[in-house]
């Protein structure tokens, strides 16, 4: 299983906005246990979509500027980017099948 890559605000432009692949970014905070429970789902999907979608996580408490830039005031928030644009946004914990459907809608 892939270990989910963690990024900081500095790498956001290169890793997310300039990525040639669609990117799923999970905003989390260390105090949010729901976010922790969300990790296995994101990791499973990262495995499944390897090579076609990139998966990253970012600590929203430590990277406030990025969180504010995308109006993230709650976690987990999952934002899907394509060509630097926000194409979908999911607030809160969703089951694996739901998240996969949302990703499919963008990839296909």
């Amino acid at each position, binding site marked *: 299983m892939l270990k989910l890559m963690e990024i900081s605000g500095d790498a956001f432009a290169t890793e997310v906005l300039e990525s040639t692949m669609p990117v799923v970014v999970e905003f989390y905070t260390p105090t*949010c246990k729901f976010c922790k429970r969300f990790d296995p789902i994101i990791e499973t999907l990262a495995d499944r979509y390897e090579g076609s979608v990139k998966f990253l996580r970012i600590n929203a408490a430590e990277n406030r500027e990025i969180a504010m830039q995308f109006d*993230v*005031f*709650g976690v987990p*928030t999952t934002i899907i980017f394509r060509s630097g644009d926000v194409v979908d946004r999911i*607030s*809160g914990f969703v*089951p694996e099948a739901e998240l996969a459907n949302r990703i499919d809608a963008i990839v296909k």
Partner: protein
Amino acid sequence: MAVSHELVIIGGGPAGLTAGLYAGRARLDVIMLDPTGGGGYLNYTESIENYPGFPDGVAGPDLAELLILHATKFGLKIKTEEVTELVAAENPKRLKTPSGELRAKAVIITTGSKPMKLGVPGEEEYVGRGVSYCATCDAAFFNDQNVAVVGGGNAAIDEGLAITRHARKVFVIHRRNTLRAEKVLQERAFANEKMHFIWNTVVDRIHGDGKVTGLSIRNIETGEISELEIDGVFIFIGTRPTTEFLRGAVKTDERGYIVTGRSLETSVKGVWAAGDVQDPVYRQAITAAGQGAAAAILAEKYLQQMKW
């Protein structure tokens, strides 16, 4: 071919995890299904000060972790999956999930309750953009900002106090003129200079421009409508039992709570319910845990007597 178990526990809050602990120690073949992997409402709770054995209180998510650790140590398996349908009338009972079907000789339902929504314009739109149901998760986003808390019960006041560690001001909006929260919490709330109380008032609308910017509030005594500028709103107006997926598989009352007797057995033999899902009265982590233990003991006896 559906996988069979002796006991399936649906839902992983304190009731389900305690049932799982007892069932694991009874060496039952037991699995728990929970859409978030366990913890239930504890995951939403900043601190729990009335769970015996923790005189200094314990963070809800930390207690969740401890209960998960304890139950899995004795053999409980937890699967992060939602049950979408229970066919209770058949034996074995069938449980449908997005990835397939499970069978169980006995079932304990501990799906707990979910936070109620206000149901006002702007609420759905701004979830994660200033509307929150979890102070533990989201309070840190409101450092030095103004925040509203809607509700007057334990959750509203306890979480409101927790938010004061981050926010500049916390406006408690309550539809009555007194709080329902425990007296010890009320004393703390009234002594906290960051807490401001807006009585006899309801929220009509949540405003925003990409994120929450304010509320339209209405005094229900005078009818006066006013605007409150805030950066976030935390909603703690109560909970409702998570029983939609049952669709009549076991008997529920008019509010959706599963109907159980003293034995915690539901209207269907071999199916028990414990914790908030069947309890409109106590709704405490400790009572849920106690009921979970009782349900597991009864399920074990049932399985022995059935001589499958």
